C-alpha cells in the first residue's frame, strides 16, 4: 500500500502532498520536511530506495523517489508493493502530467493543484494502484475536461462574467499581476530517457 505521495521542489517547498493515512497537519508538515531532508542530501546516482524517516513508520516502509529537474517525487510504500513497480509508476505519473500540461513544469503543479490531484486520483486510489495504462488515464482526464468545458459553457459563463466585473471594481486588485517569474519557465523536465 502507498502511504503517502509527496512532491516538493529542490528547496523543500511542497507542491503536492497526499496522505492515505490520517495525520494531523503538524505531523504532515514535519513528515514533508523530514522526507525532504532525507532525500535531498542523497547523491544523484545512488539507489532510489531508502528506509528511515521515523515519522513514516517502521521498517516495513520504504521511500521510493525520483528526482526530475526541480522536483522530487516521493512515494512512501510498504513491503506489499514492488519497488521497481513503484518507480515505474512515478514515471507514468510524470509522463501523464507531461502530456496533460504539455511539457509540464513546476508552475503547472502550483497553479493547477486541483488538476494534479485529479490526475493522481486516476492512478492511485486510497493508497492502491488503480490504473497504470497511460492512455486510459489520459482518456479519463480528457473526459473530465470536456465535462468541465461544457459546464463552463452553459452555466459557468454568466458566473465568470459577473466575477470578472466584480474584480474590475475592486480597488485593491493589483493592476499589474507580477508575472515576472512566471514567464521565466523553469527548465523542462528532461525528456524521459
Amino acid at each position, binding site marked *: 500500500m502507498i502511504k503517502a505521495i509527496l512532491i516538493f521542489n529542490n528547496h523543500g517547498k511542497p*507542491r*503536492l*502532498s497526499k496522505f*492515505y493515512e*490520517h495525520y494531523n*497537519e503538524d505531523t504532515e*508538515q514535519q513528515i*514533508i520536511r523530514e522526507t525532504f531532508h532525507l532525500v535531498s542530501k*542523497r*547523491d544523484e546516482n*545512488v*539507489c*532510489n*530506495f531508502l528506509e528511515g524517516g521515523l515519522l513514516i513508520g517502521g*521498517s*516495513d516502509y520504504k521511500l521510493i523517489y525520483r528526482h526530475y529537474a526541480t522536483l522530487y517525487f516521493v512515494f512512501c510504500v510498504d513491503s*506489499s508493493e*514492488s*519497488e*521497481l*513497480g513503484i*518507480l*515505474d509508476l512515478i514515471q507514468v505519473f510524470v509522463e501523464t502530467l507531461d502530456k496533460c*500540461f*504539455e511539457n509540464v513544469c513546476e508552475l503547472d503543479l*502550483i*497553479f*493547477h*493543484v*486541483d*488538476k494534479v*490531484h*485529479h490526475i493522481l486520483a486516476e492512478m492511485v*486510489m*486510497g493508497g*492502491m*494502484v*488503480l490504473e*497504470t*495504462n497511460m492512455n486510459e488515464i489520459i482518456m479519463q482526464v480528457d*473526459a*473530465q475536461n470536456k*465535462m*468541465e468545458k461544457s459546464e*463552463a459553457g452553459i*452555466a*459557468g459563463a454568466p*458566473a*465568470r462574467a459577473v*466575477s*470578472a466585473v466584480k*474584480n474590475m471594481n475592486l480597488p485593491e*486588485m*493589483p493592476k499589474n*499581476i*507580477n*508575472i515576472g517569474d*512566471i514567464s521565466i519557465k523553469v527548465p523542462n523536465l528532461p525528456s*524521459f*530517457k
Partner: protein
Amino acid sequence: MPAVSKGDGMRGLAVFISDIRNCKSKEAEVKRINKELANIRSKFKGDKALDGYSKKKYVCKLLFIFLLGHDIDFGHMEAVNLLSSNKYTEKQIGYLFISVLVNSNSDLIRLINNAIKNDLASRNSTFMNLALHCIANVGSREMAEAFASEIPRILVAGDTMDSVKQSAALCLLRLNRTSPDLIPMGEWTARVVHLLNDQHLGVVTAATSLIATLAQKSPDEFKTSVSLAVARLSRIVTSASIDLQDYTYYFVAAPWLSVKLLRLLQCYPPPEDAALRSRLTECLETILNKAQEPPKSKKVQHSNAKNAVLFEAIALIIHHDSEPNLLVRACNQLGQFLQHRETNLRYLALESMCTLASSEFSHEAVKTHIETVISALKTERDVSVRQRAVDLLYAMCDRSNSKQIVAEMLSYLETADYSIREEIVLKVAILAEKYAVDYTWYVDTILNLIRIAGDYVSEEVWYRVIQIVINRDDVQGYAAKTVFEALQAPACHENLVKVGGYILGEFGNLIAGDPRSSPLVQFDLLHSKFHLCSVPTRALLLSAYIKFINLFPEVKGTIQDVLRSDSQLRNADVELQQRAVEYLRLSCIASTDILATVLEEMPPFPERESSILAKLKKKKGSSKLPDLDDSRRTVNGSSEHAEDTEAVNINVNQGPIHTSTDILNLNSTPSSGASLLVDVFSDMANPAPTEGSEDHFPRFVCKNNGVIYENQLLQIGLKSEYRQNLGRMYVFYGNKTSTQFLSFSTSVTSDIVLSSHLSVQAKPVDPLIEAGAQVQQILNIECVSDFSDAPVLNIQFRYGGTLQNIAVKLPVMLNKFFQPTEMASQDFFQRWKQLGAPQQEVQKIFKAQNQMDTDVAKAKLLGFGVALLDGVDPNPANFVGAGIIHTKTTQVGCLLRLEPNTQAQMYRLTLRTSKESVSQRLCELLSEQF
C-alpha cells in the same frame, strides 16, 4: 492542444497564488494568507448565497493554503455542499477537499455519507467513481459501516462499467485494511475470483490486488484464484508484446499485473495439480530466460519494468522453496545483479538474497557470493545499499565463514555510518556468540567491539559477555587476562571498565600468579579509571573492590584506605556512599569465612535466549518477543547480589538498608529458599490442573510461581517476587491455538477499598500474540496497608472473529509481604505475651483436608512467608513461626502456632499480631492450606 490550458483556470486563484509567490518574507506570506482566510471566511458567512463557481474557487484557495502548511479549520461545510451539486466540476472539487482535509469528524461524516450514497445510486459512472474514491481516500470506520455491504454488490454486478469495477475493487480493499471485521464474506467472493478472467486488464489488476489481500485472511475462500492467476500469467508471459497494446509498458507486457499475480501466488503453496504446477514452472523459467535476452530498449524504464517482474518471480520461487533448480537459477541471476551498474538492482539483489539465504537449497549458492558482498560493504557509495550488504552477511553467516564475516563487519564498523552502528554491533555480538567454537574468540570479538564502537554497545551486549564468561569456566582465565590487557590502553571506553571491573572482581585471582598482573597491579589499574567513570560504573567498581578483599587478603589495607577516603565515605551520591560504608564495615568485622561466603563467586546464570537477539528482533520489529525488561532481568538474574546497581534499581526501589542485607543473604535469600520448597509442594498438589481460576487461587497462597489459569485457548502463568512492601509479578500469556490473538489487552481492577490499600500497576502488553507464542507482562505491586481482597486481572482479546473476556483473581495476598524473622525462644514468648489482648489473637480449629505430613506442613509454612522456629514449642510436633508484614505505612509483627492432632485429624491454628484485621486475614488464608 494541451488538455489544460492556463487561461481557463480561476483568475482569483491565480492572482492569490502569484501574490503568495511574490511575498518577500515568511511574515508577508502569513499576512497575505490571513487576509485571504478572513476574506473567505466572511464570504462563507455572508448573507449572500455563493454560486458554485465561487465556492469552488474558495475551496481551491483553501487547498493551496493547506498545502503551504497552514491549518484549515473551516470550509468543510461548504465543501460538503459542493458534493450535492449536480455539476461535475463542483462535485469534484468538493470531493477533493474532503479527501485531502477531512478526518473522522463525525458530524460531517454523516452528511458526506449521505452524498456518497446518492452518488453511488446515481448510475452515473463518473459520479460513482468520485464517491468510491472518496470512500477509499477517507477510509474511516463510519464509512466502512455504511458501505461495506454495498460495494461488493457494485463490484460483481453485471452491468457495472469497467472503471467503476476497478474503483470498487480497490475501495473494498481499502475498507478491508481499515476495518477487516466489517467486510462480509459471501457469494460475491466466488464472482470476484472470476474477475481475473475479465477482458479489461485494469479490472484484472485491481481484482488481483483485492484477492491477494483477502486471500491472506481466508485462503480457502479464494483457492480457485490460483489456477486462474497461473493461466493469466502464462498468457501474459508468452504473449508477443503487441497483444496487450495499451498495457505494454516500454516493451514489457503488463508488468504491474504480472507483479500482482506473482504476489497473489505467494499467498499459496505450490499448486498440487501437476499440470498447473508445470505451467507455473514454465512461466517462471520464461521470466528467468527473458532476463538473459538482450534488452528491447535501452531506456531504463524497459529494464525497470522487466526486472520488477523478475524480482517478483524470484520472490515466488523463494516462497515456494521447492524447486532446487529454480532456486539456484534465481541465485545466479541475483549474483549477476550484485555487480550490475544500476544501484537499484544491486540494492534489490542484496535484499532478495537475504531471503534466499534462509533456504537450505540455496544457502550454499548464496555463500559463493561472499566476496562480492564484502566488497559491496567496503566500496558501495550508498548507505542504503551498505545496510543491505550487512543484512545479507548476517543472513549468510554460518560456522564455516563466521570468522571472516565477523572480522569484516568489525572492520567496517570503524567507518560505518552512525545510523546503523548500533545494529551492526548487535549483529556482531549475536554472530560471535552463535558461532563461537572457542570462547576466547568470542571474548576477543566483544572486547574489540567495545573498543571500536563502545558508545553503541548497549547494556545487553556487555551483560551477555559477563553471563557467558561466568557460565563457562574454560574461558574465565583468558577473559581475565584479556580484559586486564585491554584496560591498559590509556583511554578505554567506560563499557570496557564495567566488563573489566566485573570480570577481575570475579576471576582476578586466575591471573594473579603473574607478577605483571599481581593483585595490587590489578587494583591500581582499575582504580586509575575510577575517577573518569559515571556513578553506576563506580558503584560496580566498589563491588569489585570488596570482591578483591576476599580474593586477595594482601590488598585489604589498600582497599580499605580507598573506601575510607572522604571521596567515598562522604560522596554526594547516596549509592556510592552507602556502598563504601557497608563494604568498609563488612571488611572490618567479618571473618574470612563469612567474607568468603558472602562474596563467593557468582553462580552460573540460567540459560535462556540471548537478550541481544531479543533486542535485535525488537529493533527490527519483525516478531514479537518477550519484553526487554525480562531479558534485562535474565542477565542480571543477580538481583540478589550487590554487584549490579542496574539490577537493584530495576527490580525494586529498595531502601538503603537493603543492599547490605542482600550481600549478607546471598546464599539464603528468602525468595530462593521459598521457591525451592514450593517445588516440593507443587509436586504433591493437584497433579492435574483443574479448570477455573477459583481453584488455582488458594494454591498460590504458599507459592509464587505456577499456572493460574488455563482453558482451550489461553494459558496464564505467573512468576512473582516480593521484597518488603513491594512486589513484581511476571504474567505470561500463552496462546495455545494456531491462530493469532488480536487486540489483546489487559487491565487490573481493584475495588475502591482494595485500591487504597494495594496498588497494582501493569506495564503495557503487546496487542498481538502469535500462534503458539507467549508474551509477558509485568505488574508492579505495592502494599500500602493491610488488605483482604484480591485484585482482578481482566483479559480481552479477539480470537477468530469473537471477542474473549476472561477475569482472573490475581493471587496477591497479604502474606506475600512477609519477611521471615528468626528469634530465640525467650524472645518469642516475651512477644507472644505482649500480644495478649483478645482482639490481637485469632484462633481456628479445623479438620485436615490433606494427609497430615510434617514436611509438607513445614514447606507450606515457609512458603507462607514466616520463619520456622525450632525448639520454641515444648511439643516438637507443633510448629511455631514468626515474621513481619511490610506495608508502606506500617510494619506488623506476627507470631503463629500450628498444633496438629493426628488422631483427630484436626489442626489448631493460633495467630497473634498487633493488628486485628491482619490476624484475621492471615488465619483465613493459612487455615485453608492444610
